């Protein structure tokens, strides 16, 4: 075993490519050499969440393909009446831009975290949380609008009854993820602001030393929420 696990500061000398994959998995040590267990576990959680959302979108596809009744046109259903004319999908477009912006601020927060600029990191995380909260707010507005127009999980005024159930299920589950993300962001932002990751203060639950990697792991979750929205936007709203 010539390779040693790279510890603080030393350059990482490992085979690259497929040979590296084989070497990493057959090393009789941890397989993910450059990812800590925390990061690897977040990735594996996100993989499982991918399957959850994958199943929802497949259920939606199956429902939409197997009904002889016309599917409501999302372009008209989600249009808003602005300035005397209907603008198609405008709220959804704004929600998309808000979520992408929150991903951008999160990526910057991770970057400043590793530079140990804790106040800037915390402020960027709070901004991310604010944008996330805006997104959930707009989603609540959208739900309210559709519900007052008569959309129910079992019926709607425009076409196939399955529209309501898939809409509430998919956007509801995504909104829940965003909400959990906002709470998670606020918790980590508080720790960053307090300097927990500079003093390596131990976590209240895991009792492990605080490290700025927590910000990156938080970021993985947040970017995943954005990622899921990319797929929902494409398949549910645009298709």
């Amino acid at each position, binding site marked *: 075993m010539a390779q040693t696990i790279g510890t603080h500061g*030393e*350059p990482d000398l490992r*085979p*690259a490519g497929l040979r590296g994959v084989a070497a990493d998995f057959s090393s009789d040590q941890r397989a993910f050499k450059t990812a800590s267990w925390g990061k690897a576990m977040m990735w594996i959680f996100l993989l499982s969440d991918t399957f959850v959302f994958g199943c929802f979108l497949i259920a939606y*596809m199956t429902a939409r*393909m197997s009904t002889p*009744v016309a599917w409501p046109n999302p372009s008209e259903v989600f249009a808003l009446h602005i300035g005397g004319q209907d603008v198609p999908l405008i709220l959804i477009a704004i929600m998309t831009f808000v979520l992408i912006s929150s991903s951008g601020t999160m990526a910057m927060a991770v970057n400043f975290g590793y530079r140990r600029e804790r106040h800037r990191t915390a402020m960027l995380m709070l901004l991310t949380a604010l944008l996330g909260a805006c997104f959930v707010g707009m989603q609540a507005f959208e739900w309210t609008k559709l519900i007052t127009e008569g959309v129910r999980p079992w019926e709607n005024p425009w076409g196939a009854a399955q529209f309501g159930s898939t809409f509430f299920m998919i956007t509801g589950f995504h909104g829940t993820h965003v909400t959990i993300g906002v709470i998670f962001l606020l918790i980590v932002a508080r720790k960053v602001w307090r300097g927990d990751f500079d003093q390596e203060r131990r976590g209240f639950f895991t009792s492990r030393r605080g490290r700025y990697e927590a910000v*990156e792991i938080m970021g993985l979750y947040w970017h995943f929420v954005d990622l899921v929205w990319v797929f929902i936007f494409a398949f549910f709203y645009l298709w």
Partner: protein
Amino acid sequence: MNETTAHTHIQVGQQLQTGQQHPIRLYLFVWGLLFVLSAFSYMVDYLGFQGYLRWTLILLFMMLKAGLIVAVFMHMAWERLALVYAILLPPLLVLVFVALMVSEADYTIFTRLAFFGTGP
């Protein structure tokens, strides 16, 4: 462990154990790209493209956005291949599930039309 072959492919890691460190400019650039791509996918609907053109453009912009988020924002481009493969290959199996359910949905609508005319 074949040490000689292992050392012929030495890769000097760009990142130290202190974490992922990339220029802010890269993030701003990707952020801008995501905005532009989102605007493009919105334009697909706004301009009212239909049929295969619409679906191709939607999927193209979707995959580009997803790729940028995973590769740059989630730092997958700088992780070891072992992690990249472990996380990105399993979701491809979802496509098998999609194929199964396309076939199932075709059968369902066939039976609905054959036995109920235009049923629920």
